[in-house]
């Protein structure tokens, strides 16, 4: 089984994380390491815990046990093995180290495209507004929207909004970028432009964890694919291995067969 092949310590280290919503166990002792520069995609049926796991990584969701470390630092709880939640400022500072792109974009509707990107740069990174503006323009250029800097989200198409969402996340120079089904709310013809941006970030060496239903993209762009089922990691490995038709993993085979039937 191919884990992160090099020996460098994992940038993201998820160790035996479990979480329940009431009586329902959504994560069952999930462990996953992601090395710097890796692109890991998480696939699996709905309700398998993919999105919850991703949301635990930047502590939008708390978890009941286990540990999540980025660069060796515990994310949501104070270090030294306590289960004591970090304070508000501390949490905010930790979250600034991870970027997140959402299924529903979640752009701030009262701010322009540039304003959306500048908010974190000025408030969190302490940049001057001129500096933030030039960074925003740089990233808007990277996602092909230099001409839309002063447009409000409502004036942009879904694909454009999501590209602004990506620019907003990466402009903060996060150590790791989390992408939560970022093309699921898009019309099919707009998916390509968003995935192209993700691909170019991957080529730049951005570390990414991506929950997606875009199998072709997962196959082409990921270093590894994680298949989740029933709140646990059911299979993990390079795309060729995980997506192989002759897999012996029953759950995975069913998932892939159902997927092929509906998408190809």
């Amino acid at each position, binding site marked *: 089984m191919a884990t992160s092949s090099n020996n460098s310590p994992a940038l993201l280290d998820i160790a035996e994380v479990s979480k329940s919503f009431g009586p329902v166990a959504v994560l069952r002792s999930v462990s996953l390491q992601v090395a710097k520069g890796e692109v890991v995609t998480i696939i699996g049926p709905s309700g398998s815990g993919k999105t919850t796991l991703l949301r635990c990584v930047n502590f939008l969701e708390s978890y009941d046990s286990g540990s999540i470390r980025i660069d060796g630092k515990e994310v949501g709880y104070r270090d030294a093995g306590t289960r004591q939640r970090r304070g508000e400022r501390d949490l905010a500072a930790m979250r600034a180290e991870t970027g997140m792109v*959402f299924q529903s974009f979640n752009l701030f509707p009262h701010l322009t495209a540039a304003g959306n990107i500048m908010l*974190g740069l000025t408030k969190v990174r302490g940049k001057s507004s001129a500096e933030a503006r030039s960074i925003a323009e740089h990233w808007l250029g990277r996602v092909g929207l230099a001409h839309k800097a002063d447009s409000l989200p409502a004036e942009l198409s879904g694909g454009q909004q999501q590209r602004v969402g990506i620019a907003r996340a990466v402009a903060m120079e996060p150590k790791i970028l989390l992408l939560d089904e970022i093309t699921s709310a898009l019309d099919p013809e707009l998916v390509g432009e968003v995935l192209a941006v993700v691909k170019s970030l991957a080529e730049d060496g951005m570390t990414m964890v991506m929950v997606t239903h875009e199998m072709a993209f997962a196959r082409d762009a990921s270093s590894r694919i994680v298949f989740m089922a029933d709140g646990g990691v059911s299979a993990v490995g390079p795309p060729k291995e995980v997506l192989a038709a002759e897999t012996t993993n029953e759950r995975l085979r069913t998932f892939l067969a159902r997927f092929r039937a509906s998408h190809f």
Partner: protein
Amino acid sequence: MLSQTLYALPFLAEGFALTLWVSLLVVVLSLIAGVLLGVGLVYGPAPLRWAVRIFSDTIRGIPILVLMFFVYYGLPAVGLHLQSFWAAVLALTLFKTAQVVEYVRGAVASIPKGQSEAAMAIGLTFRQRLTSVIFPQAFRRFLPPWINGVTDAVKGSALVSLLGITDLMQAINQVIGRTYEAMPLYILGALIYFAVNYALSYASRRLERRFAFIRD
């Protein structure tokens, strides 16, 4: 006899000034208290939420006049003696605060959860999320009912005359007591109240248009 009324104009102007002063105090104090308690009602720990809930539901269920008499005539029983002016301001402020709490709760709760999450994800602290993301969006929804409430506060301030405070209403009644010119004076009073509230509504519509660009 009209000249008698004209003679009384400076007196009426003083009453009007007091009406504006009471209204302004009530509106500003209830805005501050209402926003703080409203935020507490949405984001606070359970005991605070219950306390605010009980406060708001109780106050809103009491006629404002009862509340005013209670503060002025009732509180001295527990050793709290307020001048009639401050008793009136306190009662009106409590009443208005309970309303502002509900406007704030409604406006803040109407902002989708994803907005807070996106703000968290870029590393904003709670206070930054409120001031930079939630409030600017909630403001648009807060404004129309709140301005309505402000005009109610101006009209409701006439109740302070019942504690013997010489506001516009009381001044009018006193002038009528001397001149027996009830009709023209009440019309004058109505016009003044109307003018203030019309100006407020106009300003509100301007403001609303100014924020209409925020769509979700």
